[in-house]
């Protein structure tokens, strides 16, 4: 298939950006979206032009490194990561607009690459449990309710790709944080730090410049791992719990 690609090009954090249009011929439906960009980059390199910078790592949908705004949808038209999106979802003659995640807390690095270390700092602020080092404890020594184990597992599927922020009209990271708070807070190991965690994480989130949540659900719709919106409810409930405990 032949495609018209409108791609955001920006040489660096401070450089002015612009949309550049490329024509790409003979795209196979079996290519992933990133492979399609690889093909475009090879042709740019052959022509002596600067290739388009974009993030990728595992290319099997589990690392959270890739992420592009594709014609206004985070990770494109289907519920998956950009690397697992295949060109068969598009049609011959389509015009596709490709932009980086846009958020104040995700500063621009180059072209389609943004700096998501604000997520790392939110995790650093409270997204952890404290455990003694040494040999692994016997798994059955701490019983976990099946319902809670399932919910924690569902939330733990978050790969921190940032699609929730990219899709949110307020550029809020509540779904990301809600996933972490739910993942750790549902388990016995996460209890000692539970209320300190939520306060520290939300404080860091606000400090990074993310917006507030308006419960629109755009984040959950965009999430490639289908994290449900109710993790934000859990986040809110835990923050209310922290208030009641004088934090």
């Amino acid at each position, binding site marked *: 298939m032949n495609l018209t690609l409108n791609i955001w090009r920006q040489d660096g954090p401070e450089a002015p950006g612009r949309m550049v249009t490329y024509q790409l011929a003979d795209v196979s439906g079996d290519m992933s979206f990133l492979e399609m960009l690889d093909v475009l980059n090879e042709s740019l390199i052959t022509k002596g032009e600067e290739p388009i910078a974009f993030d990728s790592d595992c290319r099997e949908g589990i690392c959270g490194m890739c992420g592009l705004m594709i014609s206004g949808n985070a990770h494109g038209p289907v519920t998956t990561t950009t690397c697992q999106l295949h060109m068969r979802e598009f049609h011959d003659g389509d015009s596709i607009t490709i932009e980086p995640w846009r958020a104040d807390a995700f500063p621009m690095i180059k072209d389609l690459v943004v700096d998501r270390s604000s997520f790392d700092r939110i995790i650093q602020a409270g997204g952890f449990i404290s455990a003694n080092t040494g040999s692994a404890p016997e798994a059955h020594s701490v019983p976990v309710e099946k319902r809670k184990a399932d919910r924690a597992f569902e939330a733990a599927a978050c790969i921190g790709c940032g699609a929730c922020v990219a899709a949110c009209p307020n550029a809020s990271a509540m779904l990301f944080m809600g996933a972490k708070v739910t993942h750790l807070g549902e388990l016995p190991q996460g209890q000692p730090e539970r209320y300190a965690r939520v*306060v520290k994480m*939300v404080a*860091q989130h606000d400090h990074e410049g993310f*917006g507030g949540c308006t419960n629109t659900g755009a984040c959950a719709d965009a999430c490639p791992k289908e994290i449900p919106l109710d993790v934000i*409810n859990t986040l809110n409930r835990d923050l209310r719990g922290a208030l009641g405990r004088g934090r």
Partner: protein
Amino acid sequence: MATPTLLQGEQTARRTTVFMKILMASTGALFVFYVLMHMYGNLKIFFGYQAFDEYAEHLREMLTPILPHTGFLWLFRVLLILSLFVHAYAAFTLWSRANGARPQRYAVKSAAKGAARSKMMRWGGVALLAFLVFHLVQFTIAKVNFNGNFTAAQLGDSTGKLVIASFQLWWVVLIYVVAMVALGMHLFHGVWSGAQTLGLTDSAASRRLAHATAHVVAGVVVIGFLLPPLAILFGLVK
């Protein structure tokens, strides 16, 4: 621009955006209760302006003689005004934060339901604020009669008569129809959103309940508030 630093020291829940949302949700819950009571009171007009005026007088006599005449009414009014300030302050603060959180917009953004809802809540809220000022001036503060068919002497100090005179005018009814649709849309998202913000939507069942409550509250409020003006406009209540 983002700050590449980790916050140091103790943080407090009261300074987070989520706390602002909790303030909005709890003041919003008070408004929902108030709006339902107000709607119930308005329906008294179907039993005549005397019944309406009597109800208004009962509100002034609530908890007397423990409280003085209109004592409860004023306590409640002060609570509502304070809540309105908190609700609006939190809304405008979060609105301005959200604007700052995405300085560079997308060239193409799918018609996300999200963006439309946020706009509806914010601009709808501003519209409701403007309507509230008009409404209070019209029926409470200045008691303005726009209907030339009624003289001040005919209306006396009866709010019930003023209501009937006012809603015989099509344009007054139109303002109220627009305002109530705005209120309905505000409640439609607000009731559900408030439940989620207060952490009440933990299970699939409670989420369904919150959604259903939002639908019912929005529907009941819109219909309940619009029945009297429309009935008066079409001459069913005189």
